[in-house]
């Protein structure tokens, strides 16, 4: 392609009365021509593009890989964080006990709702099952507990509240009075970290001693690991001041209560006789249902209404669509037409900057005398120049000339010029007076 020529606009020169400044015309003839056409195969272009965006491609790939890996690791063997949950390997989880029981042939199944628990009991036969109930939040109401207790399954209650105990008693209806006969007797207080069995129950005596660092004590037909304070006044079982312990069971052994959930937990399972008690207690039957009530057990009206049920049906699709439109809008506005063009900026230094800096130094240091001396020198120089005193004129000469010129008394001028203002306000006053004097001299 040919490069065309553009006739230049010429910057005309001034030409005055015959003397033209030849050569001031800045001629600008043509021309730089650039031609670009698409070259290279599609493959080459694609490769080039790939190379150009190499950095972002690598970053993208790495971040996707990291995300996938983290997701896989996070879901590899699903772990929960619930206290005493069978799939929680943390110190307060119950995974250790559940795993040991499973290894010894007990079918361990975790459930989180009463309906699921009852279903399983119905499927596998309640009489050959043990149900561990751990409900620290008190989710189950009395009716639900009764329904659970009405089955033939053995119940192991971990730290049950009084209401739970009452529900179990009402349902099981074994003996007179309190049903299962187990009642809560307040918080456990032990002088040592372990409590001895002190009873004839097989499970308890096999364990010997268990951790007693926290929990609740219970009274019942069978009572083991008594706490020392209630043990001292011990009388007949069932009475209000009978000794209470961490382990209580009904007479027929169908309801067992454990006052300290930590003896089942992963970290304390190996301590004292915790493991013995736990495994004997839970491993009696072929099947163990590890039941931890959840929100599903709450009655229907207690569940808060889902937001989606309150909103109109078009809301979600419209929201999604608006999101899509917003993304499109960003793509529309965010697409630049070509790379950014840089501007090589020149260095700019403000010329009076040093003077400003020096002024701040004077001010910060309160150097009013120095500042005054400079002002005086400037004023004297200008006045002596105005009065044509020459460079050799001494200070006294200038003073005398100024006094003569303005008609002020010598002393007044000398006082003014010799003042050394010590403070800011004094400097201000003095500088104004000096200015007035200078104006008076130079204006005549």
């Amino acid at each position, binding site marked *: *392609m040919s*490069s*065309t020529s*553009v006739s*230049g*606009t010429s*910057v005309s020169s*001034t030409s*005055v009365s015959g*003397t033209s*400044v*030849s*050569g*001031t015309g*800045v001629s*600008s*003839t*043509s*021309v730089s021509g*650039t*031609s670009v*056409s*698409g070259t290279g195969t599609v493959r080459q272009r694609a490769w080039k593009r790939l190379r150009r965006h190499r950095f972002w491609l690598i970053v993208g790939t790495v971040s996707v890989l990291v995300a996938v890996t983290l997701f896989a690791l996070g879901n590899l063997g699903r772990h929960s964080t619930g206290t005493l949950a069978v799939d929680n390997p943390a110190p307060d989880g119950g995974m250790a006990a559940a795993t040991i029981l499973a290894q010894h042939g007990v079918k361990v199944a975790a459930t989180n709702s009463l309906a699921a628990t009852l279903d399983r009991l119905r499927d596998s036969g309640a009489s050959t099952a043990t149900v561990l109930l751990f409900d620290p939040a008190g989710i189950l109401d009395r009716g639900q507990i009764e329904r659970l207790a009405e089955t033939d399954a053995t119940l192991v209650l971990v730290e049950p509240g009084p209401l739970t105990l009452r529900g179990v008693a009402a349902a099981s209806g074994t003996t007179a009075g309190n049903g299962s006969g187990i009642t809560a007797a307040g918080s456990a207080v032990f002088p040592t970290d372990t409590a001895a069995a002190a009873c004839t129950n097989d499970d308890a005596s096999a364990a010997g001693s268990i951790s007693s660092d926290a929990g609740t004590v219970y009274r019942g037909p069978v009572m083991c690991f008594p706490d020392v304070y209630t043990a001292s006044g011990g009388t007949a079982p069932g009475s209000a001041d009978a000794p209470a312990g961490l382990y209580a069971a009904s007479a027929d052994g169908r309801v067992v209560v454990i006052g300290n959930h930590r003896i089942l937990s992963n970290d304390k399972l190996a301590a004292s006789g915790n493991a013995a008690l736990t495994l004997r207690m839970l491993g009696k039957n072929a099947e163990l249902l590890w039941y931890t009530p959840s929100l599903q057990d709450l009655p229907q009206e207690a569940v808060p209404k889902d937001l989606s049920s309150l909103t109109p049906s*078009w*809301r*979600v699709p419209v929201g999604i669509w608006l999101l*899509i*439109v917003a993304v*499109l809008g960003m793509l*529309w506005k965010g*697409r630049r*037409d*070509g*790379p950014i*063009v840089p501007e090589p900026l*020149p*260095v*700019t*230094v*403000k*010329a*009076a900057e*040093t*003077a*400003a800096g020096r*002024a701040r130094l*004077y*001010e910060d240091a309160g150097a009013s005398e120095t*500042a*005054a001396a*400079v*002002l005086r*020198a*400037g004023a004297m*120089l200008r006045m002596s120049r105005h009065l044509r005193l020459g*460079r050799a004129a001494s200070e006294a000469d200038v003073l005398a000339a100024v006094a003569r010129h303005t008609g002020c008394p010598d002393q007044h001028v000398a006082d003014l010029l010799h003042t050394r203002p010590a403070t800011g306000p004094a*400097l201000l006053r003095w*500088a*104004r007076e000096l*200015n007035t004097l200078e104006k008076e001299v130079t204006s005549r």
Partner: protein
Amino acid sequence: MAITGRFVLLALAGLIPILLFPTGGTIIAWLALLTVVLIADLALAASARTVLLHRSLPENVRLTEGTQAHLTLVNGSRRTLRAQVREAWQPSAGAVNPRQQVLVRAGERVRITVALLPTRRGDLHIAHTTIRSYGPLRMAARQRTMATPGRLRVLPEFRSKRQLPAKLRKLRELDGRAAVQIRGAGTEFDSLRDYVRGDDVRSIDWRATARRRDVVVRTWRPERDRRLVILLDTSRTSAARIEDEPSLDTGIEAALLLAVLAERGGDRVDFLAFDRRVRARVSSASRGNLLGALVQAMAPLRSELIEMDWQQIPGQVRSVSAHRSLLVLLTSLDSGAPEEGLIPMLGQLALRHLVVVASVRDPLLGRLRLERATASDIYRASAAERALLDRETLAALLRRHGVEVVDAEPHELPSQLADLYIRLKVTGRL
């Protein structure tokens, strides 16, 4: 690839069917519609790859004067090209309409004109041109950026040109004056003419009078063919911004006026821009017109953030002029820099040459000096006074070395420097 506002509007219109039938199916259907429109429009757009570009630029333009750059597009594809063309000028080129819409039928060409109003002296560049080729529906566009390097040299403004006629007249008035009016050592004999009343009797040429029987006087003209070396300091001190103009630019204005004036005055002019090495060098002895060469050489000058190397100056001056010259140093007299560099070299320079130091004074200092409103103002006034006194001291020191000093505010510097040149010429000190 790029989408347009029209495409976003089409997407927004999807809200109506989604409100009417709020299901996932509607969303997917509308997305499918959008995709089809997008692909169809992209497929039907003329490829930006087939466009041939050709730009023609003027080589020079004077600062503050506008110019035009032309770009010719040839559509090499078989489709009509509807495109937005963007010429990526750097911002200080002051492109008025860098983005333009074009419509070029297949095989045809079109020329667009970009108006430029540069805001800064120097070489301005354009690196590339971007073509955004829209489909027939204007929903989507193919985009391509092509490297189309170009350069536009922006010459100094030479504002002081306005003062040139007045200065030239002043210079011309010197011709043919009687010697008494311009008594000096170096004036040259011009011609003989008849005595008119008022001429100094001392300039009567008795020998000629005897020959002609009329009283004849000698006339003189200023000496010609003297040497003038202008040295522009481009070191860090020239970056100082005074009244919204770098002192380098003020120096350029002054140098241009002086050089043109001196050339018209019949002197030989050499120009040097120097910091640690020579940034530009122009001589009136070389061919071509001086001003053209000067503005070309000055256009790309910038302040370098390095210290001036004064040690090299005598050597540099000697390399351009072996004889006694008028050496004009356009530099800074701010306290600090000259004491270490300029003054130690002055003895050597002043011995061989007549030295003039021209410097820009900040008018802000003069204004600050008079402030008397608050205590802070007094300190500021005092600091300004200090700076001005330092300059005075420095100027006095320079004058003691026999150096002429021009210390003026930016708008007055070129004029005062020219006046000084004329005065020196009148007194025959060149």
